[in-house]
Every structure is written in structure tokens, then in C-alpha cells.
């Protein structure tokens, strides 16, 4: 913007006006742009144009400077951010962020709680055990992104924005499963405590490690379980809970898969490293030293079978679920570019895999 010097001269004659700078009115590196609304409104993709859409491969400043704004000399550093885009990026971050914002739901009012009616004691206990497990573990996927947020540079803000939606989703999952356990005459039952598999997620010292373990493996397994919720659910409320949670979880898994793909495309030398993370995670999944997850497994047998007297049917459905979990996990790995994982997957998982497609 060209500032008319006569205006400045006039202003300076006015009393009580501090010394004016106004240089910020004519920035050199932050051009004016006009964006256009798309079919989905004014999304992040619509504003990522020109210099504002240039995501640097390396974030070099440790301040809260917003990408595309004019740097100010002398600003103190805020944090040590992960500098490399390839360490944290996923090309679908903006899409799933916008979807997450659109698809928020309320556990208080969007679940038809009135459809929950008394169930046989064994089935109600089993549902409550499943809910105890889920209300316990869901927020690990809130704590883990939370501890990584402080390391995401504002130059890569799209990733931070996606992660805050995941934290919000997981809060809602913690909330809704706790509510289900406390609405129909039972209560919370046995928590697993911190298993090695879950602790492994918080222990991760690398973002990709955390994402592979959490998004692709753990949340992938949970998502498959949610998507077969019709075999677990006993009423419309539970069906709705599983459906909405599955919808949320799909975004988390989607980020993890695309992040893994991005890493392998831009840092292919990390392939073996990632396999190493998954080697450990798959081994810890259901580690015998943790006593297995008998509570969840037995509760699934009961709910899927429709009662303790039908655990044989429940066992068949549970094994079908295990098979589905393993195969969908393998599919995600293939999409991410880790198809070779089939040949080094932990045997306890691999035994459930279908043969590879010709």
C-alpha cells in the first residue's frame, strides 16, 4: 500500500499521536490475495494459495510466526520444533481436518439413549466391560498427539490442526463409553491398566513411530472393531455410538496411513526403521506378560454370541473379527507402501491373513 506522505504529515501535527511507523502497511513478502469459496465453503485448501500455500520442507524458526507472515527480527524462540516436513506430514491433513470440524457430534444429545433397555445381566456386564476398556484406552490417542503438539512448527500448522481434532474426537470417545457403562444398571468393571502396547505409544521418541503404532496399528484395530459394532451392539444407542466412533476413527487411521506413505516416498531410507517399530508393536500387542486382554475378549464373545450360553457362536464371530482386523491392517500397510510387511508380520497376527491377491 502506498502511503500518501501528506497524510503522514497531517497526522504528525495532531496532538497526542505517538510516533508512527506504518511500514507494516506495505509488506514486501506478504502479498494480498483473494481466495474463492469452494463447494465445501472456505476450506484450508482454498486459502493455501501462492506464498501462503508453500509448505517448507524444513521449518527453520522456533517461534510462533504464522506461515506467510512477515518475520520480525529479535523474536524469542518458543520451542524446538520437528524441522523436517517429511517427519510429520500427510497430504490429507487439511481434508480430514475440515471433515472433522464438520462431523463433530455430541454424546449427550446425538445418541438415542432412550433406546437402551434392560439387558440380561451377562450381556449388560459384557457391554460394560467393553465400555470400560474403551473409555480407558481411547484417550491414549488424545494424550499421545497432545505430547507431540508442542513440537509441530506453525510452518506445518495443518498437522497441528488435524491433531487437535483427534484429541477432541478421543475426548468424546472417552466420554461416550463411560456414559454407556453408567446408564443401564451396571457400571465400570475391570481396567487393563497400562499395557506394554499402549505404553509403547507414549514411549515413542519419533513422530512416525508414534503414528505407526497408534494410528495404523492400534487405532486400525479399534476402527475395525467399531465397524463391526452391529455384532456387538444390543440397541440403537450402541449402534449409533459405534457408527459415529468408527467415522471419527477412520480419519485417524487415514492420517496415519497417508503420513506413512509420505515418509516412505520422501525418506525411503526409513523403511527398515519403520518395520522395526512395527516388529516391536506387533509383538507387544496381546503380550502374554500382560495377561492378555481376557476381559475384552470374553466380553466380546458374550456380546457377539448374545449371551454366555452362546459363546461358541461368539467365538466364531470374534475370530472373524480378529481375521478382519489383521487383513484390514495389512491392507492399510499396502496402501502406505509397506506391502512387504506381510512377510515379517508377527506370527500371531499373520496367521489370520488371507493369502495375498495374485
Amino acid at each position, binding site marked *: 500500500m502506498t502511503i500518501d506522505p501528506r497524510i503522514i504529515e497531517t497526522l504528525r501535527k495532531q496532538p497526542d499521536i505517538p510516533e508512527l511507523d506504518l511500514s507494516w502497511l506495505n509488506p514486501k513478502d506478504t502479498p494480498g490475495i483473494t481466495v474463492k469459496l469452494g463447494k465445501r465453503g472456505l476450506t484450508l485448501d482454498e486459502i493455501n494459495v501462492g506464498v501462503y500455500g508453500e509448505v517448507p520442507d524444513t521449518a527453520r524458526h522456533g517461534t*510462533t510466526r504464522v506461515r506467510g507472515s512477515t518475520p520480525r527480527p529479535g*523474536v524469542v524462540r518458543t520451542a524446538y520444533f520437528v524441522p523436517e516436513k517429511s517427519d510429520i506430514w500427510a497430504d490429507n491433513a487439511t481434508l480430514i481436518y475440515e471433515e472433522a470440524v*464438520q462431523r463433530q457430534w455430541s454424546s449427550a444429545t446425538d445418541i438415542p439413549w432412550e433406546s437402551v433397555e434392560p439387558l440380561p445381566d451377562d450381556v449388560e456386564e459384557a457391554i460394560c466391560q467393553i465400555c470400560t476398556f474403551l473409555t480407558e484406552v481411547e484417550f491414549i490417542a488424545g494424550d499421545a498427539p*497432545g505430547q507431540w503438539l508442542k513440537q509441530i512448527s506453525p510452518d506445518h500448522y495443518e498437522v*497441528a490442526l488435524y491433531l487437535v481434532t483427534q484429541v477432541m474426537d478421543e475426548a468424546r470417545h472417552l466420554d461416550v463409553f463411560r456414559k454407556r457403562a453408567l446408564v443401564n444398571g451396571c457400571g465400570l468393571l475391570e481396567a487393563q*491398566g497400562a499395557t506394554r502396547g499402549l505404553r509403547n505409544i507414549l514411549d515413542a521418541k519419533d513422530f512416525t513411530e508414534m503414528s505407526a503404532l497408534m494410528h495404523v496399528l492400534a487405532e486400525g484395530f479399534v476402527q475395525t472393531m467399531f465397524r463391526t459394532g452391529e455384532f456387538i451392539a444390543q440397541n440403537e444407542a450402541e449402534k449409533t455410538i459405534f457408527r459415529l466412533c468408527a467415522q471419527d476413527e477412520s480419519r485417524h487411521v487415514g492420517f496415519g496411513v497417508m503420513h506413512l506413505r509420505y515418509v516412505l516416498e520422501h525418506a525411503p531410507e526409513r523403511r527398515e526403521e519403520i518395520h522395526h517399530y512395527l516388529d516391536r508393536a506387533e509383538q507387544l500387542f496381546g503380550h502374554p506378560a500382560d495377561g492378555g486382554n481376557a476381559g475384552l475378549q470374553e466380553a466380546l464373545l458374550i456380546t457377539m454370541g448374545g449371551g454366555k450360553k452362546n459363546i461358541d457362536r461368539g467365538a466364531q464371530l470374534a475370530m472373524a473379527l480378529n481375521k478382519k482386523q489383521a487383513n484390514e491392517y495389512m491392507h492399510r500397510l499396502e496402501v502406505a507402501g509397506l506391502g512387504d510387511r506381510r512377510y515379517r508380520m508377527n506370527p500371531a497376527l499373520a496367521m489370520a491373513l488371507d493369502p495375498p491377491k495374485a
Partner: protein
Amino acid sequence: MTQEVTSKTAASTAGGIPADLREKAEANNWPLAFIERALARGAPPEVLHQALDAGLTPLEAMQALAGSGAGGGLELGMAWSKVDTERGIRAKLGKKGLTIDAINVGSYGDVPDLWPDQSMRPRGAYVRPGAVSMGYTIYSKAEVWADNLGSLYEEAIQRRWAPATDIPWHTITPLPEDRERAMGQICTELCEYNYMVILALGKWIREVGYGYHEVKLFLSTVLFDAGRHFEAFRKRALANGGGLGMQGTGDRLVPIRDAMCYSEMATLVFLMNDSFVLSLYELGAGLAQNEAESRLFSLAAQDKARHVAYGVEHTRFLLEHQPQRREEIRKYLSKGEEYLAKDDVQDVPMREALAIHLGGGLEQIGEGFRKLKDFRRRQVLAYLDRVETAGLQDHRASLWPELAAYLEPA
């Protein structure tokens, strides 16, 4: 598959798998973990021998066991159903649905003053002995609590909005360049503040123990709000031919960055900085040049009001239960005020942008500066009112001098 029980005996090895079964399983590439689980669930070793001899895969063996019609060797332990947790809970739907407060009944609503449990045990559940630590460092209720957490959490979800579609962006029409640039500068710095909130809360949400899940739930909504505000103000800056402005000084963010305990962070973010930002959002709504800005700033203010409400109630709770921390909290406020005042002086672009916005244009910047002084006075008064409501009476006497100067008669 038959289930004849033979009299075969086998020596056990460490881990509980008979040696001969172990040897056969390893020769057939069966995972030993699978064998352990099958035995734990009551599958007779003889049955597993038969499955191995038949050349079945482990999965086929399990399916056969399950389909045998006689429990298939699957016996439910059911230990999880016999734990000593409170039963018979039937939380009731209220006018606002099944809220987080509605389920805080019986022992499930007892929020302990201390929660030393380092696991992820949900409050009211039983946890098996031996659960490892997940590293939660906050186990004192007074450090994090506020009585309005449940209602604020539910309200945040009910009042959700999407910047992409809930803001009538099409109502933005070209503004004079000076006003557009001023708006861009204001939006740039609001983006920075909200990103700092994301950085700070991400760190602290992870530290809160599971005994205070209401705190984790509420902080999740604040993170989500901060992300949405960052998004929305960036969109506004880029929507109308202007662009982003100059980076802020970062001074006001330093105390937040440096907070070494939760209450220090909460004091600086929710009680102090958010109070000033709320006033700024309200100003933005009042000076809106179009429906988009009016709605954007109003919705942001609605969110921010919840954050401030938590800040006030948390501080009040803390001071009621730990009155010895009164002076400590004053020191956090004092540090925050010092950096805020410094920021106010150093951040010339923001000051000039606000003056242009308040005055109605560059040529009216003189009038704008006069209105800015009045606005600052209102900001400080609103802040003082909140601090005193929180239990720090007479804070005016402790107010940082440069901020107190705004309260002096003109």
C-alpha cells in the same frame, strides 16, 4: 476333532506349556503365545496335539474348538465381572441429554483430592495390580479442578461451529486497503496467540491423571477451539485481497512458554491472556464491517468466554483449597502483566492496526489512538473484575504499573 481326554502326561516347562507340546508347536510354526492363550482358556493340551497332528493352522484350530458345540475348550474366566466396583448405576437423561455431570453419580462422581494412580484406570473402575506408570504428573485436584468443567465441556460441543461453512464469507466486500491491512495484522496476531495455546495445552493435557477426566475433556475442547480460531483468523486475513501482517513480538507468550506448573499456565492463559483476548474478540464483533466478521468474532468470543469462565472458577477453587498459594498466583499474574505491557509498547504494528480499526481508517488514526486508550481501560477493568471474582481481591493494588496507568483519570 475329538476331545478325548487321554492320560498322557507331559512335563511342564517355564511358561506353562508342556515340553512336548512346545516342541511340536515350534516345529509347526505355531506362535507360542497362541498356545499359552489357548491353554489359559481351558483348551486341553491333548486337543492342541490333535490339531497340530492334523496339520491345522492355529486359526483353524481355534475355529474348530469353538465350533465343537461343547464349549470347545473355551471356558470363561469372568474374573472381570467379579470386581468390586459399584453396580446398579442408572444415570438419568436431563434436559440437556446425558451429560458428563449426569453420570457423576455414586462413587463415579467422587472426585478425589488426590489421584496418585499412574495408570489409565477410569475413575470408578478396578485395575489389575501391576499396571505400569503412564507418566501422569498431575494428581492433585486443586491443581486442575473447576466445578464448571462438565457444563463447559458439554456446552463446547453443543455450540460447535465450522469456519468453512458457518461464516458467511460471501458477505465480505472490498475494504479500503488500510483497513484491510489492519484487519490482516490483527488476525495474524490472533493466529499466533491461538497457536501458542495449542503448544501449551498439548503439553499439559498429557500430564493430567485419569482421575480428573473432566479436565482432560474440557482441555480437549479448548485445543479444538484454539485450532478453529487459528484457522478462522487465517482465513479472514486471506479472504479479501489483503494478506497476513507482521509477526508479533512474542513477548506476551513468553510466560506461557515458561510455565512450570499447571496452575501457572492456567493463570496465564485462562485468567489473564484470555481475558484480554476476549475483550478483543468482542471489540472485533462490535466493529465488524460485514456479517462475516460479525459472526466470526462473535462465535470466537462465545468460545473464549468458556475458557475465561474456567480460568475464574479454577483459580477460585485453587485458592479455596490451597489459600497458601495466593501470593504465588499473584506473582504469575504479575509476570504475565509485565510481559503484556511490554508487548503493548513494543508491538507497534498491532497498536497502529487497532488504532486504524477503531478510528475507521488511517486518516482517523489519531481518533483511533484515543479510542484505543479507552479500549485498553475497558480491557483492564474487565480483567480486574475477573481476577477479583476468582478470589484475588484488591488486585488493583498489585496491577503492573503500565496496565494500572490505563485506569487513571484522563
